[in-house]
């Protein structure tokens, strides 16, 4: 059952990811990206990381994609559609993609063992089923407080910067 769901969701994810890149119309592209993100959230749910899954939908689909669409709608789609698909960076992209696929193949061939850290092998964290929201919260505010705060300040700075840029006169 789980395996079946996993592959279904994975297929959705991959197919829509490809659509996202290949779609000519940016709004459709965004729509496919939403589908891909939902598939990914499904994978998170399947892995019992409900918190991450829900936050994924909330932040990416409900927040970021809405803002994306907001911007895309303001730009005339017809102009964008006529543009050339590939730009100057395509060679770099090919190189990177090759490296990534080699890595991926290596891991797939090398077996699932690669992903298993020592802790998992010894069975220490096989089950984090209960209350992972609490765990995440506690982690964030204890062990990782500094990075968390830095990230917050970074976002704040970015927000203020955006406001400053968007205002016509100060």
């Amino acid at each position, binding site marked *: 059952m789980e395996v079946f769901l996993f592959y279904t969701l994975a297929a959705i994810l991959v197919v829509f990811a490809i659509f996202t890149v290949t779609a000519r*119309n940016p*709004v*459709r592209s965004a*729509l496919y990206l*939403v589908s891909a993100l*939902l598939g990914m959230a499904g994978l998170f749910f399947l892995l019992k990381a*409900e*918190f991450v899954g*829900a*936050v*994924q*939908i*909330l932040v990416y*689909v*409900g*927040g970021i*994609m*809405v*803002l994306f*669409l*907001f911007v895309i*709608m*303001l730009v005339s789609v017809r102009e964008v559609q006529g543009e050339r698909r590939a730009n100057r960076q395509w060679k770099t992209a090919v190189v990177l993609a090759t490296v990534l696929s080699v890595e991926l193949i290596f891991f797939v061939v090398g077996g699932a063992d690669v992903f298993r850290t020592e802790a998992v092998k010894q069975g220490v964290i096989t089950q984090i089923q*209960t*209350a*992972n*929201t609490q765990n995440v919260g506690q982690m964030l505010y204890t062990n990782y407080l500094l990075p968390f705060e830095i990230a917050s300040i970074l976002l704040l700075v970015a927000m203020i910067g955006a406001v400053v840029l968007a205002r016509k006169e100060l």
Partner: protein
Amino acid sequence: MTETLLVYAIIPFIKIAVIVLILSGAIAYLTLFERKLVAHIQVRLGPMRVGWHGLLQPIADGLKFILKEDIIPSKADALVFTIAPAISLIPAFVVFSVVPFGPPEMFEGLLRWSLGWFFDSATVESVAQNTLASGGFITDINIAVLFVLSVSSVGILGIILGGWASNSKYPLLGALRSSAQMVSYEVALGFSIIGVLLVAGSLSLVEIVQNQEKAHLWYVFVQPVAFALFFICGMAETNRLPFDLPEAETELVGGFHTEYSGFRFSLYFLAEYANMITISAVAVTLFWGGWLRPFPNVSWLAFLGLIPPVLWFLIKVFLFLYIFIWVRGTLPRFRFDQLMRYGWKVFLPVALGNVIVSAGVLLAFL
């Protein structure tokens, strides 16, 4: 094996089917209820022709919507135009998978009785004991509140995409308005919920209700500010007056659904009403004790327990829907800049303040 199949597949499927059916009916009749109520507020009668006091009106409306010609504007993006209404409607239904209508042991008796015909007593016993099967909810996940928030946020996309795909100016303006409005008010909505979460200490809607029972107190009395915010922002999220700017018949003609007609339009229409029910149900669950009767701890009011929990839930939801419609019959509409100003400069700071004060009080005294 039979147990697993029963608990995880068959019973949930039946529950889903029943809820979808009931919900669809409820939405349809909510439209009639709104028309009747608003009519009576406005010293007129509302639908009277179809059936007794217009009772069959929703069915007539539904038939009309289905039979109407299906128009896709020639300049529209057909694919997006087609699926956008569904994107808007589906999340409204999905949210109900985690909303509890009744206590965890609600269907225990029913299950025992009905399963007794087909299975041996051990199976019946274990299935009936499983809250997932016997509970008055489809599922109970430990991040239900987040789930509600995230799924309902997907519904916005339907409106935005619909407005864009129509390839017309009024819908585009409506879509822009709605995206700005929803993003703004979702923040305050989220923060208002956090107040409850702090008190309840759980993200599961079932547990939140159970905690209210244990505390002998509905959380609205602990978090009145949060409730007010939640309800106002909920109104904004559902595009109801005074926040119906994305539609605003008198300004944007119909906003994002200007170009929609027939069945597709009815999907948007239903989505709005489904969202109203969702917001009311979530508000009842978080703040008004869900399926609990009033004053669960006062013994001389025990006769209130004669009304089954699920009915209490429905009564409360109904009251909220009544308020929704009442407000619509009374207030004018905000202007866009005013809406944004209230959202960011009033509701968000108040919600943040509420969270900080709540957390402080909890830390200091508990």
